[in-house]
């Protein structure tokens, strides 16, 4: 058998390891990574993309609803200012103002560009890109393709990018960054098939690695979501920001257990689905926060009129922002009004004709039919909150997307700031393409400004490889699968939707214990496509992400957006002025601090706090 | 370890890891087609009992020449060109069916559904999905000897003509001795023409020609009309396999019905009495 063990991996010569050299290395090949790669290629840079799985399989495929862009194709009243205002309000005004502005302004062009690259969006009757309603968006704004918009996005970018000159390193996991002094000089990774290590030498590195939902038991995220970007950036000394804001999507599947957490698109509610408790009550009417009361229907009758297209009617409460809906469902279940498997009912069957459901929500129909043996055109679904998205992430400059480390860029979910305390549905796909492009441009500016190329430091390479091989080499140790389960349980139980000090302190103690286990983790077998080894290597990053979330959540003594505390209910104005930032301290321990946010530009502030009517008529 | 190499797959014709009854469908196809081929060839060779009252067996339509002396043949004035000419070579049986079966035969032989069916059940390339095929040294698909399959649309043009002819026959089956009426046989023949029409109009080539060739369905008013037709053809095309079997069975049954009635084995119930 062609197995080879890396043990003993005594490295005497760095030339044993293959080195690939590029101007820019992009880690992650989801929407943001591919968009960054395309931009980098367009700017004439030699571009390499390192992706953990096969090209085109990234988690972006799971995005269903659409991408938000104020094109005004369906409702001409829409414009970037209203999109910006919606985003800020959804993010509880904690968003980075400049990022939210650029996002709202640039998204329409990015969507049109996708069409030019081959994306086939659903159409309006006049032949334009159709847009659908979504939670938190004032107008129908989400360009979509049925309920598989993410697949369309990634496929379009993939099919276009392969002809732009990028080099793709598939099934290759990044282990850690290499630095030349303060700046980035590349990274070390390994090919999953063989376990062979590889050095990527680069002037700039762009992280597009997504979030870390795999630290929770119930999550919509796939195995790749292990916070690699957070972990590597943290270890290299970058700042992580707003990590306490984790979005729990209100509607994940709750049954069967094996698919628990898998997403049920918000599109179901956008197209008329309603939430019911086990008494058959449409409970969302009881959970409308005062801030949204003016824009939310308070009777069933009005909600129905809205659905029928009455522009004077207000939106149904099911389309409130995700944090509100998730907490409402949580409260219903805790109050004993949940469905048999611990969720609530999401009913579209009694509201929309079967053929319309099948046409508008084909993959939902398919998903329930095949995974839960349930026909959503006949029966309501059972849904409950699931860990879905990290609003926080690597702290970046809003224009260049560069982190606090020179040469390290971040875009997509792994960067922080754009979404503030809570992300609106549909803003993530547009985030990917807007900031993916900006990261590519930022990398170009940085690479052009370099006077000399950074060098690889061999001792850094050795220590990265040693950390990886020791997992295979030690005689015995902890089981990576069990350690992971342990971590997930700790986070699920103590740092979930509703948080309190006592539990989070307990979690920190538990995390210290798990840190100990992670340092002793052992994978049996060889380095060849070894699932246990791969998991063991991911654990460090998951742990860093989990710790950053917990410490951030403990520090922020208020409830805002995706961060809700039982012991500090409600938003506190004094906290609006701060972001919580975590970084690696000089003693190797995590340091968390409050940093003051810059004052918002007057112009943007005026838009964000404007009355909607004034924006519609162009008064502001 | 040899046999276990390459993922545990074994070689050999029709070998598979599948443990379901995948072989039933190709077997039934094989039996079904074989039965039809044997029966239709036999029936065509008979040259008799293809006519009764006002019923004409579809195997024998259109009547180009007629041998008026055969039992159960049509009146000679029904033929397009009368009785068989004296120059008719003796080695070709005097059966109208032989001229005719060639056209629907060619249509079905080159039909995209039938190709699937006989490549699977007769040629075993492959007999089933994920089942080892008959080994071919040099598989060329339809790029070499089978290039003629590309002329399916020409077979279609004849098949379209045959629908008209068979409807004509079916309507004539409602008139006997100048009197309108209905018999079981006239219904059988009407259904036959209809099933054949459903099969023929669901043809993949037809679907392509009526509208599938267009990249833009909405760019002008003609394209919009063609799109509507394409949608209807698509409806039938989705049921092409179904109609292929129904029409195949029914055309054979129609011939058998006329034959047995003509032979006096079956009695045809009708408004004309017997």
């Amino acid at each position, binding site marked *: *058998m*062609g*197995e080879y063990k890396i043990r003993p991996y005594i490295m005497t010569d760095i030339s044993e390891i293959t080195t690939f050299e590029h101007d820019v290395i992009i880690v992650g090949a989801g929407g943001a990574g591919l968009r960054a790669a395309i931009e980098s290629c367009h700017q004439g840079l030699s571009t390499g993309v390192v992706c953990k*799985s*096969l*090209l085109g*399989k990234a988690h972006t495929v*799971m995005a269903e609803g659409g991408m938000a862009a104020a094109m005004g194709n369906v409702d001409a009243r829409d414009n970037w200012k209203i999109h910006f205002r919606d985003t800020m309000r959804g993010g509880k005004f904690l968003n980075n103002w400049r990022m939210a502005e650029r996002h709202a302004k640039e998204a329409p062009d990015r969507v*049109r560009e996708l069409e*030019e690259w081959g994306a*086939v969006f*659903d*159409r309006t009757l006049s032949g334009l890109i159709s847009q659908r309603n979504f939670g938190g968006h004032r107008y129908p704004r989400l360009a979509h393709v049925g309920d598989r918009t993410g697949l369309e996005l990634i496929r379009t970018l993939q099919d*276009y990018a*392969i*002809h732009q000159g990028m080099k793709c390193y598939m099934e290759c996991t990044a282990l850690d960054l290499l630095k030349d002094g303060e700046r980035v000089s590349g990274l070390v990774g390994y090919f999953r098939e063989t376990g062979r290590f590889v050095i990527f030498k680069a002037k700039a590195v762009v992280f597009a690695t997504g979030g870390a939902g795999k630290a929770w038991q119930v999550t919509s995220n*796939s*195995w790749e979501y292990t916070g690699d970007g957070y972990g590597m950036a943290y270890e290299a000394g970058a700042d992580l920001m707003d990590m306490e804001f984790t979005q729990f999507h209100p509607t994940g599947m709750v049954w069967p*257990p*094996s698919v628990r957490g*898998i997403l049920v698109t918000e599109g179901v509610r956008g197209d008329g689905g309603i939430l019911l408790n086990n008494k*058959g009550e449409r409970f969302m009417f009881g959970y409308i926060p005062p801030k949204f009361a003016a824009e939310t229907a308070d009777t069933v009758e009005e909600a129905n009129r809205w659905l029928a297209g009455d522009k004077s009617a207000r939106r149904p409460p099911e389309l409130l922002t995700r944090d509100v809906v998730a907490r409402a469902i949580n409260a219903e279940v805790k109050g004993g009004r949940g*469905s*048999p498997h611990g969720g609530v*009912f999401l009913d579209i069957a*009694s*509201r929309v004709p079967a053929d319309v459901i099948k046409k508008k929500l084909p993959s939902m129909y398919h998903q329930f039919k095949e*995974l839960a043996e349930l026909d959503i055109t006949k029966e309501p679904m059972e849904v409950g909150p699931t860990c879905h998205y990290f609003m926080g992430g690597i702290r970046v400059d809003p224009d260049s997307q560069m982190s606090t480390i020179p040469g390290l860029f971040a875009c997509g979910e792994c960067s922080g700031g754009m979404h503030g305390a809570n992300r609106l549905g549909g803003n993530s796909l547009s985030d990917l393409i807007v900031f993916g492009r900006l990261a590519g441009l930022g990398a170009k500016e940085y690479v052009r400004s370099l006077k000399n190329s950074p060098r690889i430091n061999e001792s850094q390479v050795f220590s990265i490889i040693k950390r990886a091989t020791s997992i295979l080499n030690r005689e015995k140790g902890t*089981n990576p699968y069990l350690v992971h389960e342990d971590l997930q349980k700790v986070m699920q139980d103590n740092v979930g939707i509703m948080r309190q000090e006592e539990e989070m302190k307990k979690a920190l103690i538990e995390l210290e214990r798990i840190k100990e286990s992670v340092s002793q983790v052992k994978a*049996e077998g060889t380095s060849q*496509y070894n699932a*246990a080894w791969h998991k063991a290597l991911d654990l460090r990053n998951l742990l860093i992400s989990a710790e950053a979330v917990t410490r951030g959540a403990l520090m922020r003594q208020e409830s805002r957006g995706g961060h809700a505390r039982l012991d500090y209910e409600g938003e506190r104005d004094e906290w609006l002025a701060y972001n919580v930032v975590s970084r690696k301290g000089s003693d190797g321990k995590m340091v968390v601090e409050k940093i003051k946010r810059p004052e918002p530009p007057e112009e943007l502030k005026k838009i964000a706090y404007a009355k909607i009517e004034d924006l519609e008529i162009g008064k502001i | *370890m040899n046999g*276990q190499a*390459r*993922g*545990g797959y074994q070689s050999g014709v029709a070998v598979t*890891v599948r*443990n379901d009854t995948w072989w039933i469908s190709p077997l039934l196809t094989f039996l079904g087609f074989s039965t039809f081929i044997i029966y239709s060839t036999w029936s065509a060779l008979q040259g008799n009992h293809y006519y009764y009252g006002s019923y004409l067996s579809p195997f024998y339509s259109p009547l180009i020449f007629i041998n008026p002396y055969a039992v159960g043949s049509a009146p000679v004035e029904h033929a397009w060109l009368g009785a068989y000419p004296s120059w008719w070579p003796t080695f070709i049986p005097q059966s109208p069916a032989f001229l005719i079966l060639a056209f629907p035969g060619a249509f079905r032989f080159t039909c995209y559904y039938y190709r*699937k069916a006989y*490549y699977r059940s007769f040629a075993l390339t*492959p007999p089933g*999905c*994920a089942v080892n*095929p008959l080994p*071919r040294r040099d*598989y060329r*698909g339809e790029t070499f000897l089978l*290039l003629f399959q*590309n002329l399916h*649309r020409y077979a279609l043009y004849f098949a379209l003509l045959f629908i008209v002819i068979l409807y004509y026959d079916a309507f004539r089956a409602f008139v006997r001795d100048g009197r309108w009426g209905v018999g079981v046989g006239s219904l059988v023949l009407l259904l036959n023409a209809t099933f054949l029409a459903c099969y023929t109009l669901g043809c*993949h080539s037809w*679907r*392509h020609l009526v509208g*599938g060739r267009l*990249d833009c*369905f*909405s760019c002008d008013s003609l394209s919009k009309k063609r799109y509507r037709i394409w949608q209807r053809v698509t409806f039938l*095309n*989705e049921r092409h396999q179904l109609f292929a079997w129904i029409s195949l069975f029914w055309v054979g049954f129609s011939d058998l019905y006329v034959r047995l009635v003509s032979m006096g084995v079956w009695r045809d119930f009708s408004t004309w009495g017997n």
Partner: protein
Amino acid sequence: MTVRAILVIARLNGRIQDSPLQKIMKRNFKIWRGDKNGGQFVDYRTNIEPGMVVLDVLHRIQAESAGDLACRWNCKAGKCGSCSMEINGKPRLSCMTRMNSFKEDETITLQPLKTFPIMRDLVTDVSWNYRQKEKIVPFRPKPRDADGNYRMTRDDVERIQEFRKCIECYLCQDVCHVLRDQGGKDQFVGPRFMIYLASLEMHPLDTADRIPAIRKEYGSGFCNITKCCTEVCPEHINITDNGIIPLKERVVDRYFDPVMWVKRKIFGV
């Protein structure tokens, strides 16, 4: 809130009792383990709980007894197309194959895709597919309308959207006998890329002409329309009827139909 919904919910509230739960029970598996140099089937036995799919079983086996068992997966919801393998001889997605679709005493055999070189255990090297896509002339759109938009009607996009549902699981490539058994990888790009070509060729905005290449380099004639690709497609794309056959017909228009040839000579289109 309709009366019907209330009735349904009343029934669902009682579902825990009458749901078709399987008993928790041991089941037998035969999994091929090895790499390109060889290997063998290894037997495993593990507990099955209600609602499990084959991929859950693999994860359980990894956690319990074979930590280094290699299988590729990602979304676990039938959307990314990573976990393709052959389950009891049929090419399927392991995340979409429910355990209750098997008989209780059935031993379930898991193998890597036959058509592609084995990397390890259930993981195969599917890079051939990526090379095929690179060969294909990409989308070349017309210029935009004067207002900066493209216009396409719903009728126009519906047909190509079916092909764009493809999740690139390559099950169709695996089952296609031209690639699987006839050694046709140099001649035929396979069903996945035939529908990719169909999505480009039927795109109302596209201007490139791929018909000559479809016949020659991409090898449309090698498909003998035995439709196994359509049978295994987890997205239920009608690969053969809606994708490959229409392309074959377009090739006929160009190369085999004398009437079309004359028409082109006279009218130029």
